[in-house]
């Protein structure tokens, strides 16, 4: 009964979405407030029904109802409870349900918090949001129904893929989807603005919080996925330039560009057409990502052709929304009035520079990801585009961008003084040179590029602080005045500084890990010791342990430095009988922000076990930096000027119109 209710709720949500997609838009055309007013309650009710549907599927998983085909395929009664929850989205059908749940959550949020929006814009944006929702409800109902029943209910399920039986699954997909799907709001607003043919700085003010929220979730989601891969896969890599990773990186790059260009639009009423384009682009890339990972096209163009139902359906959604969005853009954008002039050297100019390189980096990833598919489809020729290509092309595109980061906030709007900014960055230059020298001295010789990477990272970090300290008058005025200024300074200024500083932190982590990673592969017997970078690892013994739905063999290591015990590590191998698969659980030990990484390989007949040992200097900075970056976004989001409905002098004033 519960699965059928869930199924029915989804059908009702589709019906509501269809109403929300048409009635308010018609109302906006004929100027009927009652019809436009339908959008809000419809969006809220839609969310309620999808949430009920999602709860129904969750209930099936938690209760281990194996008569539901999806549960039978992806669950097991002995699985720990947390994985019963997370396996709801650990499969295609369930993850699509999560996708629409988040989509309807965003729609409902606009309905709930968008009270200060102009009536027609709100109605149009919610209608566009409902078009997207309707398309995906239909996709689930037609091709990917998670509530299908089996005639004869099996006694036991086939278990969740062991790799997914990890707390990472609880956090990574929801965050990633919050990011992906969050960009649907800026898309809907962009389309609504194009339909109305009117756009102004206020538009950017309404859209920026949504874009910022989506961006910060996506940042955290990508970082979480990267860290998960790092500890789960057993060979210490953290970014693989896999097409599926690229699919999440592209919206992130476009979204980052969008955030920056929206600032120009809000403050200076310039770059309007470009901002609209980025809003469409960011969500289009999210849709593209969904298509890439859902359709099977990544394996080969031919697998896609052999089982095309889902792929073709998503391709159709893609064509309608991306094609439709860009057509509307091409038609309407020339009619929008441009405003806000600026000299090339100015804050606006710096942000254009930022956008140029971010979108170019995005385009490079796009071409690299899709080129093999296109080539194979056109010429039957198969080539591979992997990590070496991306490292070679993506890196150089980020260097000019990062060099420009500290300059941006120091330049004035309209017309800036680049020499003046450079003078104010003297301290950052000096410390970057110190970083260069120290890095050279520490590493000696190879790799030559690494110290320059360190210097750039230091420059970005100190540069980000320069702007802040100048605004606060740090060390120039009495501390009390500085504190008073800090209280007065808008949060978004802190947000910018923190996020830019974090970019330097991530870079430092990436450079250090890439250049100075040490690795050792060896075979050990119980009682033997190996060393790496001054750490001695002694294998004390192998311990078999039972788990809830797996068997585990852990290797107990004692780690010493200069003869002093500093800790124990227990990497293990798990075997999951249900799927006849095994996973490696690496052991990690953090030393400051560096890590020691230990994972197990095969055990040979004579009891020797293969181990892989890494010392990864400063590796944690990569993820700490990403979290810091998201924190910067959160600070900016909490700025009261950005808060939806903040500039409201009198609360009850129905005639109040947002500033044009």
């Amino acid at each position, binding site marked *: 009964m519960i699965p059928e209710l869930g199924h029915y709720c989804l059908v009702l949500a589709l019906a509501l979405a269809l109403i929300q997609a048409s009635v308010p838009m018609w109302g906006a055309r004929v100027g009927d407030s009652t019809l436009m007013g339908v959008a809000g309650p419809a969006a809220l009710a839609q969310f309620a029904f999808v949430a009920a549907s999602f709860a129904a599927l969750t209930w099936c998983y938690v209760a281990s109802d194996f008569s539901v085909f999806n549960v039978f395929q992806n669950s097991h009664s002995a699985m720990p409870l947390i994985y019963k929850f997370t396996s709801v989205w650990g499969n295609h059908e369930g*993850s699509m349900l999560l996708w629409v749940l988040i989509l309807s959550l965003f729609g409902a949020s606009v309905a709930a918090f968008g009270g200060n929006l102009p009536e027609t814009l709100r109605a149009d944006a919610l209608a566009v949001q409902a078009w997207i929702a309707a398309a995906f409800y239909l996709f689930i109902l037609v091709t990917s129904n998670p509530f299908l029943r089996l005639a004869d209910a099996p006694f036991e399920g086939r278990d969740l893929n062991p790799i997914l039986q990890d707390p990472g699954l609880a956090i990574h997909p929801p965050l990633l989807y919050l990011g992906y799907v969050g960009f649907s709001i800026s898309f809907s607003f962009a389309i609504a603005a194009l339909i109305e043919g009117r756009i102004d700085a206020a538009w950017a003010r309404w859209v920026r919080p949504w874009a910022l929220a989506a961006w910060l979730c996506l940042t955290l989601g990508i970082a979480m996925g990267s860290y998960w891969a790092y500890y789960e896969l057993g060979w210490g890599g953290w970014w693989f330039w896999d097409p599926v990773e690229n699919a999440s990186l592209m919206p992130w790059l476009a979204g980052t560009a969008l955030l920056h260009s929206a600032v120009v639009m809000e403050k200076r009423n310039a770059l309007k057409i470009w901002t609209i384009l980025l809003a469409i682009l960011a969500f289009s890339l999210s849709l593209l990502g969904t298509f890439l990972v859902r359709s099977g096209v990544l394996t080969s163009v031919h697998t896609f052709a052999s089982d095309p139902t889902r792929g073709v359906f998503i391709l159709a959604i893609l064509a309608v929304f991306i094609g439709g969005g860009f057509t509307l853009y091409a038609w309407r954008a020339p009619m929008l009035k441009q405003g806000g*002039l600026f000299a090339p050297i100015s804050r606006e100019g710096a942000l254009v520079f930022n956008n140029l390189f971010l979108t170019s980096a995005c385009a490079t990833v796009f071409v690299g990801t899709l080129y093999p598919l296109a080539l194979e489809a056109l010429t039957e020729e198969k*080539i591979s585009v992997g990590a070496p290509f991306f490292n070679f092309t993506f890196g150089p595109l980020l260097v000019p961008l990062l060099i420009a980061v500290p300059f941006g906030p120091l330049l004035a709007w309209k017309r800036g003084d680049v020499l003046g900014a450079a003078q104010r960055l003297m301290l950052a230059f000096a410390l970057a040179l110190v970083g260069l020298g120290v890095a050279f001295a520490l590493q000696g010789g190879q790799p030559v590029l690494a110290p320059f990477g360190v210097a750039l990272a230091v420059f970005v970090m100190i540069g980000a602080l320069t702007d802040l300290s100048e605004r606060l008058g740090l060390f120039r005025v009495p501390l009390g005045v500085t504190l008073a200024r800090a209280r007065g300074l808008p949060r978004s200024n802190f947000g910018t500084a923190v996020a830019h500083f974090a970019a330097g932190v991530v870079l430092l982590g990436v450079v250090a890990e890439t250049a100075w990673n040490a690795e050792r592969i060896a075979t050990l017997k119980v009682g033997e010791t190996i060393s790496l970078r001054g750490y001695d690892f002694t294998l004390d013994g192998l311990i078999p342990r039972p788990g809830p739905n797996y068997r585990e063999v852990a290797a107990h290591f004692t780690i010493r430095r200069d003869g002093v015990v500093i800790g124990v590590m227990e990497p293990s191998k798990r075997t999951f009988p249900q799927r006849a698969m095994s996973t490696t659980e690496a052991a990690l030990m953090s030393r400051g922000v560096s890590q020691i990484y230990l994972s197990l390989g095969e055990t040979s007949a004579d009891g020797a076990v293969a181990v892989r040992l890494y010392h990864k200097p400063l590796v944690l900075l990569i993820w700490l930096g990403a979290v810091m970056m998201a924190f910067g976004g959160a600070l900016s989001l909490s700025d009261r000027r950005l808060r939806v409905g903040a500039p409201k002098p009198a609360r009850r004033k129905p005639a109040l119109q947002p500033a044009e």
Partner: protein
Amino acid sequence: MRWLAPIMLFLALLGATPAFAVQPDEILKDPVLEARARALSQELRCMVCQNQSIDDSDAPLARDLRILVRERLVAGDSDAQLTDFLVARYGEFVLLRPRLSWHTALLWSAPFVVVLIGAIGFVAAGRRARVAGAEHLSPEEEARVAALIERIE
């Protein structure tokens, strides 16, 4: 398996059994040769995996290829000779960094072309905006400006 990939992103794609790639018994005695072998392995695709280099993959075929690479290096092949040999045997598919040729020209030139087009586009748009923005005042406005200036003087 394939349909699982999306959710976890890359994790599931990388194969069902994450484990070891290079095995201890494969490693060459000569550290210089071994370093070359590792560097080369990172540029070679595991033919049966999705987007994994043979250095990262634990598929049996990847292991065979790693051993083959080391055998050829020990036999005295240069990096270029070895790459040519592998391409002749497996096709260009084996290279994770495609060679520059007519059918990859678009791929390799993409980053430069995009930056160039973007830069030209922004410069042109900026110039157009400045020309369009330098609007001339209407006669009445001119008169008002003149009147204001007169009053100040």
